[in-house]
């Protein structure tokens, strides 16, 4: 590693992945060394011990984290993850990724991430509530609508966001919906939030097809992962006239050459947690004859072996770090378009931004107003990433990273070094 950088105590995981991407991009983008120093060192890493009275009366202590990576462009923004695998290194990497994503979409946010090392399915609802409230209380002086804004991530949902909002509001003595996004509608959540991530992927695909002359109506799509992102994407893709021929979960792939009845499949999946049937193994999805492959599952889902079987013209990385670096290098060499997570996966963050804006004003938009503003921001981000990639004569990931770093560079330079 050439850049002097922060080292997490254990499991550098995603933090190293961020540093690698940063270093690679420095070869093509002109970034001042001071900016690089800033980005290579998270602004603030907080570890908190969270004692919780369990339902059996015993006290268990959980480990919680909150990392603010960079605030040059605005208050920090990032999700809260409840998962047994949460570590400081992973949280730092996710926080840095939020810094970049916000910059790609030109949102006035810095990057943050947080979480608790816990399996939420192993807790009762009351225990989960007490854990959430204690986590919030421990961070209360470090968060706020103009400091650090939380949001949902793996293992957290609207209810958890509502508890965070309530705990923060009660502690500071006034109602502050803008401290957290992804809230229920009754507490200042936004219209169009539930399907924002999938809608974002669909809008990115639409914009790219128009810019790059790719087929849209009748084009064939395979979707890996059928959770929040994959499911809502499939619905919007069908609405755009694409043919969703395959979807998969960790259990297997459902494939139907003439296109799946997306709505019915989604209903079945929501009711049972299973696809109606499994025609192929999960990995066989990658080799299907399709125009587009959407990666909406976990990080590292597509490796080099999977990439070699690929027939798609383009891969859209809806999940963070969906492709391994080897898989990406192979696909780019073959002339396959790779649409990076920083661009494809921005829908959730964008919806969070629109929610926060409405909360600051306490004035709420209609669904059409939200959708319009959303679509406009996606179109702008796609156009700017494409333009940057073309100017650098590079791929879209390089374009997105360079665009983000240049914006961060400008903000960091203008603000200077305090004091």
């Amino acid at each position, binding site marked *: 590693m050439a850049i002097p950088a922060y080292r997490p105590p254990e499991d550098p995981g995603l933090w190293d992945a961020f540093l690698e991407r940063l270093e690679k991009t420095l070869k093509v983008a002109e970034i001042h060394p001071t900016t690089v120093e800033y980005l290579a060192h998270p602004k603030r890493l907080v570890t908190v011990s969270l004692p919780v009275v369990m339902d059996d009366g015993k006290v268990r202590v959980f480990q919680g984290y909150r990392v603010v990576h960079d605030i040059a462009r605005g208050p920090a923004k990032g999700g809260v993850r409840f998962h047994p695998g949460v570590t400081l290194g992973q949280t730092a990497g996710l926080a840095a990724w939020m810094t970049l994503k916000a910059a790609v979409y030109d949102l006035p946010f810095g990057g943050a991430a947080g979480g608790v090392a816990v399996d939420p399915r192993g807790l009762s609802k009351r225990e989960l509530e007490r854990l959430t409230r204690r986590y919030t209380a421990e961070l209360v002086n470090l968060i706020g609508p103009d400091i650090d804004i939380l949001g949902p991530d793996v293992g957290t949902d609207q209810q958890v966001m*509502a508890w965070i909002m309530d705990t923060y509001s009660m502690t500071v003595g006034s109602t502050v919906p803008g401290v957290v996004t992804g809230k229920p509608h009754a507490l200042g959540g936004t219209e169009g939030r539930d399907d924002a991530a999938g809608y974002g992927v669909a809008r990115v695909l639409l914009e790219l097809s128009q810019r790059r002359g790719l087929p849209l109506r009748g084009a064939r799509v395979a979707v890996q992962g059928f959770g929040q992102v994959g499911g809502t994407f499939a619905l919007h893709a069908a609405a755009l006239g694409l043919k969703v021929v395959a979807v998969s979960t960790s259990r297997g792939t459902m494939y139907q050459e003439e296109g799946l009845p997306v709505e019915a499949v989604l209903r079945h999946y929501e009711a049972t947690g299973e696809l109606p049937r499994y025609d192929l193994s999960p990995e066989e999805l990658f080799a299907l004859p399709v125009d587009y492959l959407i990666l909406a599952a976990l990080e590292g889902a597509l490796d080099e072996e999977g990439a070699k079987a690929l027939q798609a013209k383009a891969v859209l990385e809806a999940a963070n770090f969906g492709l391994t670096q080897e898989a990406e290098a192979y696909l780019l060499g073959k002339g396959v378009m790779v649409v990076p997570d920083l661009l494809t996966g921005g829908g959730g963050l964008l919806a969070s931004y629109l929610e926060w804006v409405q909360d600051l004003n306490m004035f709420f938009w209609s669904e059409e107003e939200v959708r319009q503003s959303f679509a406009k921001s996606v179109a702008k981000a796609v156009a700017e990433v494409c333009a940057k990639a073309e100017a650098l004569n590079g791929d879209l990931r390089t374009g997105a990273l360079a665009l983000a770093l240049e914006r961060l560079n400008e903000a960091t330079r203008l603000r200077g070094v305090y004091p």
Partner: protein
Amino acid sequence: MKSEPLSYLGKDGGPWEIFTEQIDRVIPYLGRLAPLAESLKRPKRVLIVDVPIHMDDGTVAHFEGYRVHHNTARGPAKGGVRYHPEVTLSEVMALAAWMTIKNAAVGLPYGGGKGGIRVDPRKLSSHELERLTRRYTSEIGTFLGPDRDIPAPDVNTGEREMAWMMDTFSMNVGRTVPGVVTGKPIALGGSLGRRDATGRGVFVTAAAAAAKIGLPIEGSRVILQGFGNVGNAAARIFHDHGARVIAVQDHTGTIYHEAGIDPYDLSRYVAEMGGVRGYPKAEPLPSPEFWAIPTEFLIPAALEKQITEHNAWRIQAKILAEGANGPTTPAADDILQEKGVLVVPDVIANAGGVTVSYFEWVQDFNSYFWTEEEINARLERVLRNAFEAVWQMAEEKKISLRTAAYVVAATRVLEARALRGLYP
């Protein structure tokens, strides 16, 4: 566990008891939220303050002031401040609770609050009133703020008092905070469209009800009780949409003209003469006959308890839209329901005022002010949505619009309460 009754209210619960009875009546419709209804019967905070002021003659007088936050599950408390010698804590609590219901029924991001001072303002000089308002504002200051509690005008308070409150709060915290009160003068961050807001809301909700039963506004007949701010605006807006105002009643008398009364012309007459009596382009009518006039719309826009079991059976209107607060007694309500008169309840029918208060507060946050057209369009959208939700609930549960408005409101408040959970 059953909770104890509120110890700080006397045996005679007064208006607060009426509110808790209303809540008991909607509990059967609240489903899984019903166990939380107890939280509506407990005001979040009640503040009683002593307000001492120097009188002009050099003596010191003490007044009793109140500010109640009934519920803040859906947002900061919001509600007016009234100056009246008969104000009681029970009344202020009930009024705060009704604000919780109204704000939730309309879908505004507010809880409910209310305040008041036991004082007859006509017996104070303007300087004494100013000192009273400023001392009261300071005493309840820690309760107030644009994200805590936002007062507004009510009985015997207006733009002038709101300006004093805004100034006092701003001086205390050291910066200008227009969003701490609404109903301010335009020059201090007040909103356009406020004067006609309540009357416009009466029209919007009455028209939404008319659309549901296939009744066109154009050519329909309207009679109004009360020709103050609300009645006057409602009459003009009905008239502008092609309806015919055929009768108006106020404290001076009743006038009737089958071919239609021009409300603009009548406004000029009333401004000069102080009432509708003697208006030359209409015929006088004995006041009790007002209720029996054949008409499509009846708008009570004066005082409470005007429609009782004594006159309700004579009413021939198809739609009764309550511009005033509580104009219909429960006994009259039953008669009207039997007769098939569609009653658009006060909770939504006269919510135009608080809705524009909400717009004022939003504009104050941004220090960016909307045009009157923007305000009117948004007002219409908010109230149409509110009416639609209440109508759907009434259809679904086979209940009156009044009960449905309470069910919608209580459901929204308790839903927020359930989502937020019990702190800590």
